[in-house]
């Protein structure tokens, strides 16, 4: 099999296909919906096809030289394939859910085009083997997310979209300056060349700081996080995409790509990044405990959980990195599930205020159970997948001896249990407070959240499979992390 073609297809199909969707809509709207799902699924299947190569220990690379010293490089190593599979799979479920969710809104062509392009840009970013290419895809996600957050076109929504765009753009520009400073030092944007070059000549701390600003703004970490709760005005499947599959995971991924597989961080950063992450985890978890808008609560929860992922990736310990990578998978599944549940609730009750809801478990039992499953996974309760990732992150952090950071995150984990139970109890248990007889109207939406909930459980029971794959990723990082 031509694996380079497979790799090219994972990126090309969604990126090019996105623009064909409005044309397909001329045939029939149903065809367009399924075409959108097909494009994302194709991308997922092609990513899966790369796995045998990875298991055999070979990376797939596409390389072509461009004028002016630039080049076009796509690299599929274990980390990239892992991320691509996770993102495209979760996106596919979210598109399935959109069939039900988006069906009674206008501008559906724009929606599907943007969503598929969004995923395509993510795939491009994941496989990008060159900083400029990475930056280009990075900005495509910014533009598509801007359009998607302001999808409903109300004035307030557009302002939120602008805020998201401006904050992430600000970070991205600083990151670009960081990239240029790396270029000045190493003479190349190609990650493979940079990797060789920095072995003798470490990257300056200024460049790292600039890149970190970009990463933190994209991954919504304190103090660049407030755009994410505001982005909750977007349609629910979009927020699920932003939180679980694509946008905030970009920052985390680029962190792993640059600081774990390309060059190593100075000791200072192994303390500084976890401290920022810890503050972020606690502050946002505390805010989640006071908000009353269900989507804002879950958004703050993402900010908080991203802190855990950063702890795992940055503390400089193999077990913690493994935990951080598993966290990306488990958090993606569970958080997508939570947002999609919130979408079902929001559509059927016409409110997002949890203090006005109650007793929904009687009329929406599947949604309630799915929400509970996903919440357990985020809390890290066995046998759900989140347990293992949380344990590994904590155990790895303990091994580095930074016990104060561990205890700070412990507070974050306490608060996680509290705010998720607060939402669950107010929304699903107790007396029904709203007069509306909410029903689970759309079976396709309910099915998609059920799939995610079950996967959160299955991911925990068969943890050895993802864990085995993560070990291959770690083998690639050998020498960079301890």
């Amino acid at each position, binding site marked *: 099999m031509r694996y380079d073609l497979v790799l090219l297809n994972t990126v090309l199909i969604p990126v090019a296909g996105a623009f064909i969707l409005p044309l397909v809509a001329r045939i029939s709207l149903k065809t367009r919906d399924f075409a959108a799902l097909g494009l994302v699924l194709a991308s997922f299947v092609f990513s899966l096809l790369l796995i045998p190569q990875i298991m055999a220990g070979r990376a797939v690379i596409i390389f072509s030289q461009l004028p002016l010293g630039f080049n076009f490089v796509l690299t599929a190593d274990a980390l990239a394939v892992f991320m691509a599979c996770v993102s495209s799979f979760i996106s596919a479920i979210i598109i399935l859910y959109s069939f039900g969710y988006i069906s009674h809104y206008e501008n559906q062509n724009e929606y599907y085009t943007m969503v598929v392009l969004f995923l395509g840009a993510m795939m491009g970013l994941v496989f990008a083997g060159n900083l400029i290419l990475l930056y280009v895809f990075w900005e495509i996600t910014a533009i598509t997310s801007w359009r998607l957050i302001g999808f409903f076109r109300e004035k307030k929504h557009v302002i939120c979209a602008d*805020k998201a765009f401006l*904050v992430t753009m600000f970070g991205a520009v600083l990151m670009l300056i960081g990239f240029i400073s790396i270029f000045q030092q190493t003479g190349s944007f190609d990650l493979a060349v940079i990797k060789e070059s920095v072995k003798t000549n470490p990257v300056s701390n200024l460049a790292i700081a600039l890149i970190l600003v970009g990463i933190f703004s994209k991954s919504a970490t*304190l*103090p660049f*996080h*407030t*755009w994410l709760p505001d982005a909750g005005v977007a349609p629910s499947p979009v927020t699920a995409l932003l939180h679980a599959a694509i946008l905030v995971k970009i920052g985390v991924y680029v962190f792993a790509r640059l600081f774990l597989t390309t060059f190593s961080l100075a000791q200072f950063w192994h303390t500084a990044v976890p401290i920022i992450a810890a503050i972020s985890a*606690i*502050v*946002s*978890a*505390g*805010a989640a*405990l*006071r*908000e009353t808008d269900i989507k804002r609560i879950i958004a*703050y929860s993402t900010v908080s959980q991203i802190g855990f992922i950063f702890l795992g990736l940055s503390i400089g310990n*193999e*077990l913690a990195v*493994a935990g951080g990578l598993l966290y990306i998978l488990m958090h993606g599944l569970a958080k997508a599930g939570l947002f999609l549940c919130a979408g079902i609730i929001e559509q059927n009750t016409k409110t997002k205020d949890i203090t006005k809801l109650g007793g929904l478990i009687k009329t929406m039992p599947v949604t309630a159970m799915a929400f509970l499953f996903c919440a*357990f996974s985020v*809390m*890290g*309760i*066995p*046998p759900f997948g989140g*347990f*293992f990732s*949380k*344990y*590994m992150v*904590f*155990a790895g952090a*303990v*091994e580095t001896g930074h*016990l104060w950071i*561990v*205890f700070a995150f*412990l*507070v974050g*984990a*306490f*608060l996680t*249990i*509290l705010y998720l*139970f607060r939402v669950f*109890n107010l929304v699903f*248990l*107790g007396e029904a407070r709203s007069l509306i007889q909410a029903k689970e109207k759309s079976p396709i939406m309910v099915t998609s959240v059920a799939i995610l909930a079950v996967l959160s459980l299955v991911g925990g029971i068969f*943890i*050895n499979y993802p*864990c085995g794959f993560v*070990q291959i990723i770690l083998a690639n990082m050998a020498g960079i992390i301890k």
Partner: protein
Amino acid sequence: MIDKLLLLLLIILPLIAAVKILIIFRKFPKLTEAAALSATLLNLLLAIILFKSEIRFFAPWLGWGLDFSLRLYHFSAFIILAIAGFSFLIALYSVVFMRGKPCLNQFYVYFLLTLAFANGVVLSDNLLILLFFWEGLLLTLFGMIAIGNKNAFQVATKAFIIVGITDLCMMIGIALTGYLSGTMAISQINLPLGGLASLAFILLIIGAISKSGSMPFHSWIPDAAMDAPLPFMALIPAAFEKLLGIYFLTRICLDMFRLNVNSWLSILLMIVGAVTIILAVMMALIQKNYKRLLSYHAISQVGYMILGIGTAVPAGIVGGLFHMINNALYKSCLFLTGGAVEKQTGTTNLEELGGIGSKMPVTFICFIITALSISGVPPFNGFFSKELVYDGALQRGNIFYIIAVLGSFFTAASFLKLGHAAFLGKLQEKNNNVREVSFSMLLPMIVIALLCIVFGVFNYLPLNKLIGPILGESRLGGHNFSGFPVNMKLVVVSVVVLIAALLNHIFAVRVKGSAIKASDHIHHAPVLSAIYDRAEKRFFDPYDIGMNITRKISKVAFLCDKAIDWIYNVLIVKLTFAFTNEIKRLHNGSYSMYLVWSLLGLFLVAAFLVH
């Protein structure tokens, strides 16, 4: 090979039964009951077959020393057998008790999952596996309480939050222990206390004592007693949690860390134990509800176990472990009698009961036996284990001994009150038609009550066969704790205390005129009454205090977050507008102004070129 499969079956069998009930039998209550009964019976048979064996199961799993390893040896086999016995008897009891209740199939699913997870906890020989099953119990705990009455979910949440938070502490403890000892295999861990190891010890202990329901992690138990289904109380807080919590506590203190009499951690444990004994029993004394009174005793008794194991002397440890199994026996039986009363009269409020002893003679006899056991009357089992704990406590300090004996006084007093108020006295009119419960509810009570006598009269059986090997010859130091207590002074004090409790009761009933008011003179004593008032209003509930603190933290966090948001939404916007306004002002269309700018620019360019 076959024995390894049998070992796995201990976990898998209840799991399969649970899944079967959940998916196939959900609409068929009879099949559900049959599946639950047969699964618990098979589990009991398995436990008996495997009782004498030593089996290890090992399978590599996740790397980093996180292997799937199980180990059955004398200690775990003992606990497995106890768990199996209780689950079968209580399943038998539940068949009648739960019949017709809503969420029947959910109840059995959680029941069987609890059994599977509990077996997993006891068998696991890897810290991660232990944590996996241990935290998994949270789910079934939540579920079992939540299916109770209408507001039970709030208690379920409370229980989940308290136990969940302590489990997280234990998670850190486990990570730290694994790191310090370089292995995750429990049977290979042997750390000296001190420094980080002490921290790991404390974190693990938090998990263990929270599971066993000790203070300050107790406050969900009395609430659950009122709201959760009764078999849950008999199964989980009365039996399973004590067995699991104290099992793990013992493993921590004896195997994983060497707790010795010189360690401050030993004192800490004894203080936790003593405080739990006295505070919980004081609360139990004033309760006017059958189940709620028992639930406070479920907390108080765990204090004796922690005190005993915390003494780190052989007599105390043996006493603590013996008390664990004794307490599981009489406490679950007491809850079952409470359930029988509830089933037949429809209430557990003591004010509406009275005189039903003649209507329910077998239940009453079971109650008497177990009440005598818990009060520590010879020759029932509770007497012997308490004497051993006293012996250990006295070796470590008079104050611990005095508190433990004082605890006994109040225990005896409150059971005299409970028995008198519920079973003796005047029969209320509405209870005239009350009859004895059916045989399958009586059988578990009778079996457990008989065991209470056997474990008392033939106490060499549990002490020499079950508990002796746990400490091992070297640690026992040649002591033989079976038979009648050697220290006659302790026995005399205990008997005097019991007689005092009896006299106190008779006196109080005569003065106040009714059994239910037998504790009023203590309840309304000068200083105590103020404290009791506040306790009844939940001023001292650690959960509420913790929640208040959390609320304050979250308020601060929320304000921080809003402040950051203000920078984006207001400050940056204002600064941008101020800046652009300034620029705008400069572009006012005036020629002279533009000329000045041009000249200024020209000058700067010239200056740059000259340099």
